[in-house]
């Protein structure tokens, strides 16, 4: 028999004050300021914004400090905060072709209008730890070069001229973009809703799935048509103004993945595409998203669904790290009563098993008892 008990209030309160102490750490070390995190741990901030699904650098930085650098905990905090705010509306769709580009590379065309702009990238670094950073030396100003006023069309537009690539994804005429923050997930799912889920999905999970497609599980021969990172303007239609009100700019990363496609009963041989768009400078995530987007279009393109990355319900149901951590981590909360019931059950089954497998021993026991 188990009797429910109460308790732990003092332990919980003390644990939280211990957490506050450990979070602050050695008091002789200066406390972190949010602007230091925003400026110097910018890509961690971007990950929290993208998976927390809230574009606000200071809030993401606060969440990172509060979570002691545990980014999934920080994402959880940001998601919780979001639910406290009213909703003003849906922005007009951003136009990545007019982006103030900070990085733009294509693996499919060497010479393309606007050129290859490496920007602030880790690519081509030697991945050697830099002791000078530990010493905190001064950093030189970056070089500047005269800019050309050349338009930078998306690579997909260049390929489209030859008619060898499918167009940008069009939903049916009367389709209203779905919103997973308003309606529960339902399968099968339209591509726009999938993209929303992928954009806030866990980078590690999507990266592993994207990797699996490259290793042969739902192989689809991807090329990076283009990655571009930069700021785009945001506008909102509001009833009180006769024009869309400009809100400011947000930094996003866009990845256009181009995939070989031999054609099927449903589509001619051509290049198909996967699309990635995420908040902040989050190139790995945008690439993983684009790989997953393409893999998840298997049914639409008449491909056999044979691998995990093509299984919409599997991918989308498990891509959200706040849901995932909630369900995994709840296991550590008290399950005393559940476990007591299981314990009784296993004891009984164990005794029955013993009686069945070792009848003599059981008999002996009974005789001895008698």
């Amino acid at each position, binding site marked *: 028999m188990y009797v429910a008990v109460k308790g732990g209030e003092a332990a919980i309160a003390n644990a939280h004050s211990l957490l506050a102490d450990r979070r602050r750490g050695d008091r002789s070390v200066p406390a972190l300021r949010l602007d230091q995190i925003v400026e110097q741990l910018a890509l961690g901030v971007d990950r929290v914004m993208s998976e927390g*699904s*809230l*574009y*606000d650098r200071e*809030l993401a930085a606060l969440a990172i400090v509060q979570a002691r650098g545990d980014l999934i905990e920080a994402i959880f905090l940001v998601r919780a905060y*979001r639910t406290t*705010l*009213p*909703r*003003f509306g*849906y*922005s007009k*769709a*951003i136009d990545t*072709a007019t982006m*103030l*580009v*900070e*990085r733009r590379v294509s693996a499919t065309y*060497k010479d393309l209008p606007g050129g*290859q*702009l*490496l*920007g*602030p990238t880790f690519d081509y670094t030697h991945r050697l730890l830099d002791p000078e950073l530990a010493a905190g030396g001064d950093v030189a100003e970056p070089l*500047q*070069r*005269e*800019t*050309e006023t050349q338009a930078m069309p*998306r690579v*997909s537009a260049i390929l489209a001229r030859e008619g060898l690539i499918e*167009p*940008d*994804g*069009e*939903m049916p005429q009367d*389709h209203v*973009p*779905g919103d997973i*923050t308003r309606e529960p997930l339902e399968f099968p799912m339209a591509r*726009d*809703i999938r993209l*929303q889920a992928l954009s806030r999905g866990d980078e590690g999970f999507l990266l592993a799935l994207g990797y699996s497609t490259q290793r042969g599980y739902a192989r689809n021969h991807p090329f990076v048509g283009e990655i571009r990172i930069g700021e785009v303007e*945001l506008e*909102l239609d*509001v009833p*009180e103004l006769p024009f*869309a*009100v*400009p809100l*400011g*700019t*947000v930094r*996003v990363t866009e990845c*256009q993945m181009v995939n070989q496609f031999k054609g099927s009963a449903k589509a001619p041989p051509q290049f198909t595409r996967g*699309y990635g*768009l*995420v*908040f902040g400078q989050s190139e790995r995530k945008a690439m993983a998203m684009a790989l997953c987007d393409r893999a998840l279009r298997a049914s639409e393109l008449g491909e056999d669904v044979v691998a995990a990355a093509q299984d919409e319900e599997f991918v989308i149901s498990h891509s959200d790290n706040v849901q995932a951590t909630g369900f995994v981590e709840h296991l550590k909360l008290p399950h005393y009563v559940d476990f007591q019931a299981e314990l009784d059950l296993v004891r009984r089954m164990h005794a029955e098993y013993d009686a069945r497998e070792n009848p003599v021993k059981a008999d002996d026991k009974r005789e001895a008892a008698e």
Partner: protein
Amino acid sequence: MRGQEARDRAERKAAMATLAQSSGDDVVRLWNATGLPSEAELLRGPETGLVTVRGRIGGGGSPFNVGETTVTRATVRLPSGQVGHCYALGRDKQKARLAAIADALWQDPARRAEVETGLIAPLRSALATAHERRRAETAATKVDFFTMVRGED
């Protein structure tokens, strides 16, 4: 007349865009320097809420929801009757209030020039300098391909 109205709208929108993109510190600093009046009746806010950012599938296809962003808005009425609005990314309530007043003052023909020259123009020029600098820094990372000539002639 219609042409004038369209031009006014475009200019008002451009002024709002400049205010939305500028930092609250810059807006406050310039506001104090211009001596623009900051008395106004608050009709709404300043209040912070969410706007869902939309992208397009493949860059130019159908819209989809990417995620939310914080936006702060304010609506004010001047003693002279003009109503001004502000919507700007972030949670800066002081900036939203001042930007809404700036929008209201801008609609007053007697005040427009003062708002444009004292506030909008310097903000716009600071933004343009920052953008140009970013463009030039990015341009320095542009790859110049050259062909390796192999063998003789």
